[in-house]
């Protein structure tokens, strides 16, 4: 077990090192310095040189790379190029908790709705509820998140005026963003649960349990479901990643002051340190989530460890 965790951990660290290196050199390959923008084109060259010197941009690239690493290891992601006296750490500290709250609720909602939906579809295979949940799953997988967000916003906030469409001040403000974020994860989880449930229900141990006279409810809930949930656990890590990327659109549309909206803004501002800082933060976050779901899976399903070694 420990060996398995160490192996996964090392792979995660390697991934992050590669990501940081790629991000750093890509940012430095950008044409022009971050200070030569359309709106500031008439900066005198000596001012520009002094600005670059104060951010350390005049030193050789490799030296900058090393010093970036040094400050990273102290947990310092650097200072924004565009907003004076704002560090990337400040931005993440203020805006990430907002995203985490909305995303966390969305993760719970996706699991609480998605698993029972897939379960019902598998147990009542071929019946109306199976058809309905599979139609829903197909919609959730095919329709992009921004389309769903726009439609829900138009319907519930503009036409019916039941729910607020921007801000995040009361629980009612959470409903629309969470619904949009969890729409396609619900579909995916339902589809996954259904197909692995169908497989589990055909296994010998289920037949044995039935033959012993175990009630159908217990067979489904205890014997089959426990084994059918492993693919869902594998999906949990990427789910969090998916909610982070989905949140770009949802946070922008519903004016949620989260990290996703800030990332999109820093991309259009070409705020290089900010982009890099947030990318690295996302990367580390995703790697940790994947690691946790891998370890969970190894605990639940001992076969995983065996096939790894």
């Amino acid at each position: 077990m420990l060996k398995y965790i160490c192996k996964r951990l090392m792979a995660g660290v390697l991934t992050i090192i590669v990501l940081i290196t790629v991000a750093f050199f890509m940012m430095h390959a950008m044409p022009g310095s971050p200070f030569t923008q359309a709106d500031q084109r008439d900066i005198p060259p000596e001012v520009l040189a002094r600005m670059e010197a104060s951010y350390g941009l005049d030193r050789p690239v490799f030296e900058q790379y090393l010093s970036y690493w040094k400050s990273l290891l102290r947990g310092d992601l650097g200072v924004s190029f565009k907003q004076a006296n704002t560090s990337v750490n400040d931005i993440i500290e203020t805006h990430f908790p907002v995203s985490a709250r909305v995303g966390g609720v969305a993760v719970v909602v996706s699991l609480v709705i998605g698993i029972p939906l897939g379960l019902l579809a598998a147990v009542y295979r071929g019946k109306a509820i199976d058809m309905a949940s599979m139609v829903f799953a197909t919609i959730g997988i095919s329709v992009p998140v921004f389309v769903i967000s726009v439609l829900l916003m138009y319907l519930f906030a503009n036409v019916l005026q039941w729910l607020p469409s921007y801000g995040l001040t009361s629980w009612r403000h959470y409903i629309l963003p969470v619904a949009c974020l969890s729409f396609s994860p619900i579909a995916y989880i339902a589809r996954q649960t259904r197909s692995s449930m169908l497989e589990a229900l055909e296994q010998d141990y289920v037949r044995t349990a039935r033959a012993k006279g175990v009630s159908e409810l217990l067979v489904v809930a205890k014997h089959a479901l426990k084994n059918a949930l492993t693919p869902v656990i594998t999906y949990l890590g990427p789910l969090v990643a998916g909610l982070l990327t989905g949140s770009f659109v949802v946070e922008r549309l519903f004016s949620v002051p989260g990290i996703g909206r800030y990332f999109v803004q820093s991309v259009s501002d070409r705020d290089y340190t900010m982009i890099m800082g947030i990318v690295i933060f996302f990367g580390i976050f995703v790697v940790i989530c994947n690691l946790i779901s891998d370890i969970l899976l190894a605990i639940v399903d001992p076969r995983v460890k065996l096939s790894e070694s």
Partner: protein
Amino acid sequence: MALNIPKNEEYLSLPDEMFVIGQDDAQAEEIVRPSTTYWHDVWQRFRRDPLALAGLVVLAVIALMAIFVPMVSPYSYDGMDLASMNRGPSLQHPCGTDQMGRDLFIRILYGARISLTIGLAAAAISFVIGVVYGGLSGYIGGRTDMVLMRIVDILSSLPSLLYIVLIMLLLGSSVGSVILALCLTSWVGTARVVRSEVMRLKHSEYVLAARLSGANVRQLLLHHLVPNAMGPIIVSTAFLIPSAIFSESFLSFLGIGIQAPMASWGSLANYAIPMLLSQPHQMFFPVLAICLTMFSLNFVGDGLRDALDPRMKK
């Protein structure tokens, strides 16, 4: 010494009074039905899937309209007409006009050109990279395979959007850079499929026979291994098209992808947000186009999967 052992033939031939009903020696070698090829078989199975067939028809209609309508239409994607801004759907403008009086129908068709081009190009390039990378990795195996697969693991363990945004920033926003950014991240899945198929097939007798007759690695891969693994490879490539269109519309919706005055479905939806209350049709038609295409592509993909490998059918 006369042990009276019957000769072998006597065991084999049936006595005259015994015969197999319905079996005539003259017909034994006759081929009753025409033999079918694998691809003919696939088409027969695909044809029986109404959703997949409908998807194929919808895609063909969208593609034909995207190719030919702009050639004959009086409007162009950037032709503004300030006298007719924000019009609803009418005979003159089937999908209405936008904030600058541009015909929305023609802009959606130009968007279809861009989206379909990006989807097809990204899938085709990913297919080539994936086949070469996965094929070599699976065929050579050993340490090379381990290193190549670690690289794939690293690439796929992060959301591809992070890389795509970085690449888009580096290259600027254009159709070419969107395709490149999508290709650089989406070949990974195909490479995995090709690798596992090649590893499964590489110890087959026909591969051994080809090697003995002096085939080199390129011939082995392109003429023996990849053609026999074509089913799963096509399925994984088919699903790359909708996911590329998905990513492109996502990027354009956020304002990082296709730039004005060019139109893609994502950017059309993006322009429509501020007008959502007063001009809902400006949102409705681009969104309808995206949904129709995504549904069709996914149905065709599902149909292909069931047709190419009936065992995978759920």
